[in-house]
């Protein structure tokens, strides 16, 4: 009897799978189960292919996993694409108006057609998205979950829409459920429900909540995926949280507003993704120079340039290190899960104010948008708020705002305070803020002022907890990661151990300033260091070399836009241990995805890939895959695509009979 299930819901954007996913996630969370969901959505309002996975289990889940037990397919395309992935013992749920080719079904997987129209004919005219609710009802029976909790959530969700809508939704849910009770034996799941309600949250939401708890008063933003949901959450809750939310004309304005506000004495934050962050960089240097506190969140997505707006990546570490000209104090923190988004945000504000500098929070789409249950007992509004040193008394009109102190921190004054007037200049300046940059340069003052600012980094480092090795102290491999991959690496390490490869982990949250000595001490004792990160170049691996002189034995990367998952990491770590190079050839499943792209662009979506096989050698200068295409209806052969296994090039499309 399994105590964990992964449900995949696939359809087009606009099919309403978010709503059904939300109901399922919250229902499981109310039963006291752990939930982790990830939506591989596209940057489209309607159409495209959307793939939502919900992993539900009794034990705490730290990532979206890598298996599929039940598929709810909302269109034909989804059946074709995902049915082959369903694990034995699982099921495929679909409206009877769709067809599930028995050839596609893996062994031990049940096809469960649901006659939605028949089941709901007494409920009046229903919108097409209601098929989701019927499928959810059937799923609840198959998975042994509680239909009453789901009904209760639908009641709450549609309360504002009136009795009729509630009746339709709950009626459809029950109809799907009862149909399954009558026709299907439940799958092999057994649950203990603690019924301890858990909130289901995203990383972005927890950054918003963290900012509110930390006393942030201004949030400025320009819309950019995947940071926008922070803007939406804070805008919706502005009055409750006490945070003024201002959308501005561009990211230049956004960050300069936040810095202006920080200078004037409040806590301010802004968030964006890589492209917007690039625009913000000059001002981040200004915050370092005029010693203004600011929290800047970069929710990374696939780069470079516009890149992959709706896909995840950890590709902006180098950008964060290199943001803005010259040397200035900055702090870079990468939270590792949703709960940590809350804690790291609070901490970011404290560090920003205590040391009067910019703090960069590096999150990513995976962390920002996945939904997971958190233990409500572990978050509290009772957080420490440390505002740093403020000058008291009067400056008698000669306040030395940038006083050369041992710690590097100079007590500040709030503009508006009598007698404390000063100038905060982006040019190099003296203790009063008078320029020493231009007409009257002064090398001595410049040196001491520059050292004063940079000294703050030593003080910050003292305050940051040093990283610790997680897992067994002696292990065959040590996985090193940063930010959002913590949960994936934790599970990967456990699985490696089951397979006879003991693994421990070093996870880095504070990337700058960096506990180089401590990390060196840890890693120099490790047998085989493997850095795992979601980018192409191995940016953390390079940082490790720069800060510790240690070269990781291997770097496992991922940069196709999909998040790292335990199986991906386990397979590649095994390759590393066996001395196999990372296989960069086109995989069969990838050849199939490339074929889908070709079909969409050139064949008006009127075909689908069938068999993928190794093609004849010799003609294209590289090994190839032959992908047979068949018509959507009737499965007649349409032609054959020849795809290069090394380059991924489409070498030829040979039409049937041509």
């Amino acid at each position, binding site marked *: 009897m399994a105590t964990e299930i992964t449900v995949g819901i696939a359809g087009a954007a606009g099919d309403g799978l978010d709503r059904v996913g939300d109901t399922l996630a919250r229902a499981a969370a109310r039963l006291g189960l752990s939930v982790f969901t990830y939506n591989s959505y596209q940057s489209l309002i309607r159409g495209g292919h959307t793939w939502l996975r919900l992993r539900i289990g009794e034990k705490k889940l730290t990532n979206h996993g890598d298996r599929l037990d039940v598929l709810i397919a909302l269109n034909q395309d989804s059946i074709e694409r995902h049915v082959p992935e369903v694990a034995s013992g699982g099921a495929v749920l679909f409206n009877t108006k769709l067809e599930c080719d028995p050839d596609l079904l893996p062994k031990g997987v049940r096809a469960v057609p649901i006659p939605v129209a028949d089941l709901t004919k007494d409920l009046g005219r229903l919108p097409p998205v209601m098929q989701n609710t019927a499928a959810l009802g059937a799923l609840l029976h198959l998975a042994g979950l509680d239909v009453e909790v789901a009904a209760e959530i639908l009641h709450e969700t549609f309360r504002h829409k009136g009795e009729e809508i509630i009746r339709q939704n709950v009626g459809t849910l029950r109809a799907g459920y009862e149909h399954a009770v009558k026709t299907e034996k439940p799958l092999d799941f057994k649950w203990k429900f603690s019924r301890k309600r858990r909130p289901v949250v995203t990383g972005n939401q927890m950054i918003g909540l963290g900012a509110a708890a930390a006393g942030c008063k201004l949030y400025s933003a320009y819309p950019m995926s995947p940071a926008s949901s922070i803007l939406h959450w804070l805008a919706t809750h502005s009055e409750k949280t006490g945070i003024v939310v201002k959308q501005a004309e561009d990211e230049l304005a956004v960050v300069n507003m936040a810095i202006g506000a920080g200078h004037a004495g409040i806590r301010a934050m802004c968030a964006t993704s890589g492209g917007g962050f690039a625009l913000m960089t000059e001002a981040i240097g*200004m915050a370092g120079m005029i010693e203004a506190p600011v929290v800047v969140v970069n929710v990374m997505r696939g780069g470079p340039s516009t890149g992959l707006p709706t896909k995840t990546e950890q590709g902006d570490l180098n950008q964060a290190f290199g943001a803005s000209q010259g040397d200035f104090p900055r702090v870079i923190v990468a939270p590792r899960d949703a709960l940590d988004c809350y804690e790291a945000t609070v901490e970011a504000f404290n560090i920003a104010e205590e040391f009067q500098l910019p703090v960069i929070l590096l999150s990513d789409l995976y962390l920002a948008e996945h939904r997971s249950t958190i233990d409500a007992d572990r978050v509290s509004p009772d957080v420490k708020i440390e505002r740093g040193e403020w000058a008291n008394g009067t400056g008698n009109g000669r306040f030395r705002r940038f006083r050369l102190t041992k710690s590097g921190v100079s007590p500040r004054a709030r503009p508006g305070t009598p007698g404390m007037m000063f100038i905060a200049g982006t040019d190099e300046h003296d203790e009063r803020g008078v320029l020493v940059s231009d007409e009257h340069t002064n090398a001595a003052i410049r040196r001491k002022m520059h050292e004063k600012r940079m000294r703050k980094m030593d003080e910050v480092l003292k305050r940051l907890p040093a990283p610790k090795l997680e897992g067994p102290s002696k292990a065959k491999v040590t996985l090193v990661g940063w930010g959002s991959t913590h949960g994936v690496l934790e599970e990967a390490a456990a699985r490696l151990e089951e397979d006879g490869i003991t693994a421990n982990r070093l996870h880095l949250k504070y990337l700058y300033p960096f506990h180089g000595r401590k990390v060196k001490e840890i890693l120099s004792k490790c047998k085989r260091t493997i850095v795992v990160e979601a980018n192409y170049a191995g940016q953390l691996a390079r940082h490790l070399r720069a800060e510790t002189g240690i070269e990781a034995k291997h770097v496992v990367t991922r940069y196709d836009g999909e998040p790292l998952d335990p199986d991906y990491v386990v397979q590649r770590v095994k390759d590393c241990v066996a001395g196999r190079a990372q296989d960069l050839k086109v995989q069969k499943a990838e050849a199939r995805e490339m074929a889908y792209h070709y079909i969409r662009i050139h064949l008006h979506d009127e075909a689908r890939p069938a068999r993928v096989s190794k093609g004849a050698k010799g003609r294209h200068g590289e090994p190839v895959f032959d992908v047979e295409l068949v018509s959507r209806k009737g499965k007649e052969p349409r032609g054959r695509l020849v795809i290069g296994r090394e380059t991924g090039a489409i070498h030829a499309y040979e039409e049937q009979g041509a």
Partner: protein
Amino acid sequence: MTIMKDAPERTIKDLEGDVHPDWCPGCGDFGVLKSLKEAIVELKIPSHEVLVVSGIGCSSNLPGFIHAYGVHSLHGRAIPVATGALLANHKLRVIAVGGDGDGYGIGIGHCLHAMRRNLNLTYIVMDNEIYGLTTGQTSPTTTEGHKTKSTPRGNVEKPIQPLALALAAGATFVARGFSANQKQLTELMAQAIAHKGFSLIDVFSPCVTFNKINTYQWFKERVYDLDAEQGYDPTDLSAALAKSLEWGERIPLGKLYQVERPVYEDTEPLFRKGPLVDHKLGLDKATFDELLGEST
């Protein structure tokens, strides 16, 4: 040495900064600085309630020359920095200053959006039709045909009409001054600072070193006072637009436009509890539970 006091400054001497301006002798910016100080004295605003925010350029050095709070920010970013400070503490008198390159070139986007936002902000642009600090390149207001270091065959781009842009963008106070007309300039500044909403004063402030075309003499031959115009109505947008585009033989000085419109600060419900700087930090347990409870 300036003595700290809570009372408003009585003379402009009280507003003297730490250092003497490093502008070239004869620079138009001296007149602007003087008028700004005179306006602050006239309005009886205590200097610690004033925050002067500038960008980068010769004129953007101004905050260093006035005894008030100041931010000498980045090129083109005076407006958003000023906006942030104003949102943090809307009891401050926030005055943004800078040059034509700073405000109408690299910073034009912020400039226009701040106007439509109608913040209670005064923006003084010292317009010398040239880039001075970088030693004489063409600027957004450089006249056509003007030979500069970057346009040796003469500028071929049409100069920007800042006042027309301001009117179109929704500024509620639009004026033009001339640094050689000290009395009028002081009066315009006092009105602008007292105005509730976004005020722009474009000030002809000749660059004696790098602009040999738009000299004091050049302006003196062309400018006239709008106040002397019979029947000019500064609440009439079309009349103001017509005046804002007047250029060449005759160029108007004075207040082109002033109307009342709700300021951004009035529309923000959280400001009803006073400036954000005085708000309590953090969340109470009930609110926190309510916010987190939405996700169960």
